[in-house]
């Protein structure tokens, strides 16, 4: 191996804002991406609150139909293209080199370029709000012919298309850098089957970025041409082609938005159980099977089009239950026999698994065409994917934040505020998203700014709208926690939780080249746990010998 020959990036000659903006340090790029994603999260959350205000009651006139259509389009687009997906990449950029014992990223300048391209895409997308005809307003998947130049004319929708295109290119490039880093920068001894669980989830995720994002890049390019007289997506076949291409990206991205957060929850659970992750080999196999299968399930979004082979996609989609079930088995078996510390990160990790399960089980439900014929495009589906993306991924994200914040900043977050945030968010999340299953089953269509005064609908929607505010309160509690914890710092030290993977062998925060001394020997996917076990065994052996002599 050539780990010693790893080219070392020159120390940045500029400091301050310019230094941070031009840095080639993977941690800085990851932080830049993560912080910008968080800002977009706040923006997307604001859109959600405005939407929920409009539909809190059946026939409100808080915003116009046109504004509402822009709000749900931009809420979905912001959350998917500018928060959950890039945040998954940000976690990978920051953590993967540390976990595999690398000093830097492969092609860091390319990764930095990817970040800037993505950010430009995000800003271009949001700038569509400033145009005379308003922001993108054809939905986050912008089906043709609704999104073409005839049905949604104007610069706003063009900016939306260009924004998505650039964001996709940026994320594709960054994903490639993570994969290359895993391929080329692993420390001596760090074989593939010794990579930490999070790194495996990041690898599965970034491989999917590489495989699926080109479809989005192509379909957005074609949509742009189509909008300007290109006549690309013509007739029924053209419309189905658009949906096939879009969902060939659109479903894998769901798992890009899931795996790294699963990895974060898994690390939090194994560290706080003081046991290594259970069933590593099976887990790695299942995550790769998961990734492979999820590249072949896309047309379950199209069961009601009459243009796809429903049985095939029902088969692949339902089969996802097998690898998903293995992940749950591993999570529970990791806790069995452990020594559990119920820190905030652990509780977020557990909540991730419990709440995501509701999203996963309803996913099996919508994978059945006959059931989907009723619930497709209804609030049932909205409930389903918010349980995966918000009740799942965002809780996994916070598990990761509470777990790695001390590593990134050198300071501990406040546990009491963290648990308060968790409690608020559990209440808010389930009150917001669970009633959606009932509404959808009862026939409420998605994306409507006003709805009929059907018995019960007003009440359930009002509950959801109030609870959306509770979620916002939870996020606010988190921001207060960050503020308090950084102002009055409780130093974390390199390894506050008895970590198991290499990032905990680095100082907190890690210096520019990550490790300030030799790496510990890497003999498994939990090298620091191995060391502790060895030390413990040696001590008890010596103690026994002392007694014997």
């Amino acid at each position, binding site marked *: 191996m050539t780990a010693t020959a790893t080219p070392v990036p020159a120390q940045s000659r500029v400091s301050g804002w310019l230094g941070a903006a031009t840095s080639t340090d993977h941690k800085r790029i990851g932080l830049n991406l993560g912080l910008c994603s968080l800002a977009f999260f706040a923006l997307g959350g604001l859109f959600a609150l405005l939407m929920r205000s409009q539909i809190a009651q059946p026939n409100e006139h808080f915003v116009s*139909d046109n504004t509402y259509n822009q709000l749900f389009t931009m809420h979905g687009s912001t959350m998917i293209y500018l928060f959950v997906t890039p945040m998954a990449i940000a976690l990978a950029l920051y953590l993967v080199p540390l976990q595999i014992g690398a000093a830097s990223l492969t092609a860091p300048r390319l990764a930095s370029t990817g970040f800037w391209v993505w950010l430009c895409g995000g800003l271009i997308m949001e700038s569509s709000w400033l145009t005379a005809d308003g922001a993108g307003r054809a939905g986050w998947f912008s089906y043709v012919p*609704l999104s073409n130049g005839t*049905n949604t004319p104007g610069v706003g929708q063009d900016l939306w298309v260009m924004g998505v295109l650039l964001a996709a290119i940026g994320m594709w490039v960054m994903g490639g850098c993570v994969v290359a880093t895993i391929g080329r920068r692993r420390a001596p001894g760090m074989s593939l089957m010794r990579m930490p669980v999070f790194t495996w989830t990041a690898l599965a995720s970034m491989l999917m970025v590489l495989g699926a994002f080109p479809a989005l890049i192509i379909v957005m390019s074609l949509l742009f041409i189509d909008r300007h007289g290109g006549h690309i997506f013509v007739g029924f076949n053209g419309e189905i082609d658009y949906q096939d291409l879009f969902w060939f990206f659109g479903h894998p991205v769901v798992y890009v938005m899931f795996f790294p957060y699963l990895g974060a929850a898994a690390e939090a659970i194994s560290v706080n159980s003081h*046991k290594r992750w259970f069933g590593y080999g099976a887990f790695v196999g299942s995550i790769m099977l998961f990734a492979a299968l999820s590249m072949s399930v896309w047309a379950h979004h199209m069961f*009601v089009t009459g243009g796809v082979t429903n049985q095939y996609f029902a088969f692949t989609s339902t089969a996802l239950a097998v690898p998903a079930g293995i992940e749950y088995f591993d999570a529970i078996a990791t806790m069995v026999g452990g*020594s559990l510390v*119920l820190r905030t990160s652990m509780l977020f990790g557990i909540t991730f698994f419990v709440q995501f399960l509701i999203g996963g089980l*309803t996913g099996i439900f919508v994978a059945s065409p006959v059931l989907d014929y009723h619930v*497709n495009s209804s609030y049932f589906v909205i409930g389903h994917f918010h349980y995966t993306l918000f009740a799942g991924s965002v809780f996994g994200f916070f598990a990761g934040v509470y777990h790695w914040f001390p590593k990134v900043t050198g300071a501990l977050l406040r546990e009491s505020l963290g648990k308060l945030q968790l409690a608020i968010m559990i209440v808010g999340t389930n009150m917001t998203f669970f009633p959606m299953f009932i509404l959808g089953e009862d026939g409420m269509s998605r994306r409507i*700014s006003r709805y009929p005064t059907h018995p019960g609908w007003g009440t359930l929607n009002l509950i959801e709208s109030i609870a959306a505010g509770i979620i916002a309160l939870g996020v606010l509690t988190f921001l207060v926690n960050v503020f308090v914890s950084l102002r009055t710092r409780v130093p974390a030290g390199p390894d506050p939780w008895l970590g198991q993977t290499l990032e905990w062998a680095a100082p907190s925060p890690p210096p520019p080249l990550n490790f300030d001394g030799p790496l510990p020997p890497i003999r498994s996917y939990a090298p620091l746990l191995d060391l502790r076990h060895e030390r413990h065994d040696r001590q008890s052996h010596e103690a026994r010998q002392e007694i014997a002599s």
Partner: protein
Amino acid sequence: MTGNRAAAALVDTRHEYQHLFSIYVPIAIGVFAVIVLAIAFCVLRYRRRPVERAARWNENNRLEGAYALALAGVVVFLLYLTFTAEHRVDTVSAREKPSVIIDVVAAKWEWSFRYRSYGITRRSGTVGRQALVVPTGEAIRFNLSSVDVIHGFWIPEIRFKRDVFPGITQSVTLMFPSAGSFQAQCSEFCGLRHADMLFDVRAVTPSAFASWARSGGKATVS
């Protein structure tokens, strides 16, 4: 129609859905309960033990393999049920001989329902609210087409929808098992006034439908 015997043989989408639902939902609730109980057990049983007591075992591939096989078994069972139901909803129903044919044309932002044999056209959406009148217990062929963007023809009462595309006419054969008045709404986002693409379905007895149709759609249906 020859009455109940023919009606009983027709595919009932509401029944197919509810049958599947009644099997999927208990399985989902059962799985959820088992996993939540297992997690709760772990949390209560293994919290705050000395770190040294944490077990070191970390694999049991035989057990996990058996578990994966059991999961695969559940998947096969669910797929069998789904495929059986889907065959009836998609294939068997299409072979039924319809007693009424209705051309459904979707446009921004209204539905029009044309009863070709009776020379009746009903419209609902931003232009007003004329109900789609159908006979109960009979096969009805809907020819779905759109003049502009994709719309969604969804009748929650019978648990069925099909997207309505421009440039193609797709046919579905549906049956309304019981009489009543039901709300329905466009399910595929279709632009500015998507929320107004509502319509009511009035399912009436075949004889009431016949007299309504004979009157050219002018008689009130009860």
